[in-house]
């Protein structure tokens, strides 16, 4: 039994060590990383700078009858949603109301070497209008990349309820469309009429795919196939989902923008983080002794996991974001604190060490569960309903809470049980409780 507990301790410590190592070095060859480490963290625009682009609306039919200010405001909102979907939460998009232009600031991607801002911005500024169009009889065998819009529209993006990137049976990435009732009707009519003919699917005036109708389609689902990579499929699905821009936007000027803060700011934040970490560890060890030491290990794993999530989800981290990680060092020991206080109480009531640890964890569990569930609820709602920085905050809060919950109730528990199997750990002083002469126990310090 004792061996089993020691074995578990060994395993947990090994896992934590691996996670920490992974967070520091990452995994995989340089050009095809499997796991990204701390050095590949995408830092925000305030730390590393980025690009600032001026986008001008292009009206093919002239601005007559159009409310330009309103178009820009809704374009701003859609572009914000498109960037949110890419995990870029720290952009700023503002309308220059003097010249009727959009100014978009976005951070550099992590370790960007061949980034082509023009291309990225052209994509961002494309209207993203989706249409399904009939194909001229003469073009029935033309390669789909050569097809031009015919203007005989079968379906538009308006008929689509939602879109997502999925893999089909053959393992290729496709875009799954769910149609609105209006779309189902139109599509069913069109596929009946155009049987054995092609329907071309356009994003603006680029043909993505032009499948041949094999049979009448009456269901609410349709797929777009093409030779998409996962990123392409996702980007297209996002564009369809967030709707079309009211007008095309053209990048008229692209500047690189400096970090708003001096280069030293990141170093300062990292130093503050390391110091906070050390101080919290000292506090935990001094106050809780042996359990405190256990929580230090759990904390290492926790911070490493958080870094892994941020770097692998490509979430750009701003300086306040780093502040949030540092804050979580202090807040996430909470679960451990609740447990250790309970264990102390149990020990003081005269129980044996092993029984105290078991019942301490058991009784603290409900409190930790309830308090974490309330935070998780907040995080999920912020992610679903929020946008921009609020949404980014939801992501970090969710993972921070989830990890700290498991590190407290699982990792700390196994480690503490494992440590208590050793003979030296029988000393209650190591748990912050001392035995006085009368055999009664009282709190140390």
């Amino acid at each position, binding site marked *: 039994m004792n061996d089993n507990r020691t074995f578990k301790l060994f395993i947990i410590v090994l896992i934590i060590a691996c996670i920490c190592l992974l967070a520091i070095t990452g995994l995989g060859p340089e050009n095809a990383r499997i796991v990204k480490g701390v050095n590949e963290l995408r830092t925000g625009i305030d730390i590393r*700078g980025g690009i*600032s682009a001026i986008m001008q609306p292009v009206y093919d039919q002239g601005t007559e009858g159009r409310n330009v200010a309103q178009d820009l405001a809704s374009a701003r*909102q859609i572009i*914000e949603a498109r960037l949110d979907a890419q995990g870029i939460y720290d952009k700023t998009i*503002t*309308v*220059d*109301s003097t010249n009727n232009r959009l*100014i978009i600031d976005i951070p550099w991607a992590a370790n960007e070497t061949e980034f082509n801002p023009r291309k990225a911005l052209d994509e961002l500024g494309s209207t993203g209008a989706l249409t399904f169009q009939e194909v001229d009889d003469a073009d029935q065998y033309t390669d789909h990349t050569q097809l031009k819009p015919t203007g005989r529209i079968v379906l538009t993006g308006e008929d689509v309820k939602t879109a997502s990137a999925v893999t089909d049976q053959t393992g290729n990435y496709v875009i799954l469309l769910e149609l609105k009732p209006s779309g189902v009707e139109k599509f069913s009519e069109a596929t009946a009429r155009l049987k054995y003919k092609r329907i071309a699917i356009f994003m603006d005036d680029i043909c993505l795919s032009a499948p041949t109708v094999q049979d009448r389609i009456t269901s609410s689902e349709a797929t777009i196939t093409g030779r998409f990579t996962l990123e392409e499929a996702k980007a297209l699905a996002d564009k369809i989902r967030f709707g079309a821009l009211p007008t095309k936007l053209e990048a008229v000027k692209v*500047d690189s*923008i*400096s*970090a*708003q*803060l*001096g280069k030293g*700011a990141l170093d*300062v*934040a990292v*130093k*503050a983080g390391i*110091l*906070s970490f050390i*101080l*919290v560890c000292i*506090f935990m060890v001094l*106050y809780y002794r042996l359990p405190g030491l256990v929580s230090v290990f759990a904390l290492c794993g926790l911070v490493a996991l958080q870094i892994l999530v941020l770097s692998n989800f490509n979430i750009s981290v*701003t300086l*306040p974001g780093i502040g949030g990680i*540092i*804050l979580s*060092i*202090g*807040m996430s020991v*909470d679960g451990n*604190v*609740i447990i250790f*206080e309970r264990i102390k*109480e149990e020990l003081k009531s005269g129980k044996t060490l092993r029984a105290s640890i078991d019942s301490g964890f058991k009784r603290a569990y*409900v*409190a930790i569960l*309830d*308090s*974490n569930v*309330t*935070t998780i*609820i*907040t*995080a999920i*709602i*912020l992610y*679903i*309903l*929020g*946008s*921009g*920085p*609020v949404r980014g*905050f*939801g992501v970090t809060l969710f993972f921070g809470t989830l990890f700290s919950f498991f590190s407290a109730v699982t990792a700390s528990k196994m480690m503490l049980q494992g440590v208590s199997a050793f003979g030296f750990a029988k000393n209650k002083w190591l748990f912050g409780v001392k035995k006085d002469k009368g055999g009664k126990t009282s709190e140390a310090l």
Partner: protein
Amino acid sequence: MRRYDFVKNRKYAFGFSIAMFVFFAIMLIVNGITLDISFKGGTRMMIETVGEVDPNKAGELIEQAINKKVIASITKTYDAASASATIDMLRIDIAGNEPLTPEEEEQVKTIIAQNFPVKLESEKNENVSITPTIGRETLQRGILAVIVSMVLILLYVAWRFSTLGGFSAAACAIIALFHDVGVMFGVYIVFKLPLNDIFIATILTVIGYSINDTVVVYDRIRENTVLMKKTDQGDIVNVSIHQSLSRSINTLATTLICIVTLLIYSVSNNISSLRDFSFSLLIGVITGVYSTIFIASPLWLFWKERKQKALVK
């Protein structure tokens, strides 16, 4: 050692909080709300530079000169005339509902020209007005998200703490949350700090922290209600607060270690975003713990007692 009676002394805590909010309300009328450029929009000035300019320093100087919130940065464009040269511009964003007055513009130009190598007469310089970077819809969605999550927390707490009367316990927890958010707003108003996106993030953090804290104490009350059936409710609340006190204090301590470290580092290195972040967290975390101990549980007891009295009548 006599233990502090949280229940008996609750009227002082309630009185203190009410007095504090009256003070905040007066200050709100006196000071008004200061919004940062991210909420308010303002004026963007572009001035060509001909040498090294520290944007952080420039922003500070302008802020002092015209008493408006400023964010400055440097943009670089490759010169069309020669491939290797770049055109560097100092970009100054000044928060304000009204466009800059000519006097203010002059002040900005003077202070920049005095301190940095810039070309005031460049034809590339321009002034434009910009809209808020955090649009109204972002703000509205953020507020909606907070309200929806509060309703869900209310339901969850009411369900999990049915032994505490469910809804009354949940409502008191939410009141404590509003208390914390109110105090954070209040402090910002009193010190005339500009509200920005960082402030939103810290409010959200504090909501998470405060509800955690309250739930842990509620958990103790729930447990003790079962264990100490014969005991008076007031005593149960007192004992429960005391039992969870060392946890509340220790978690506050570890959290404060981090916040204070950040605050000291950011103030001494003049990093305003981190300074704003840690300062409002400092306020929020302290009020979060205060509201748990002195407001949520004693208020819940007050509610229960009133209800029982009403039943007796």
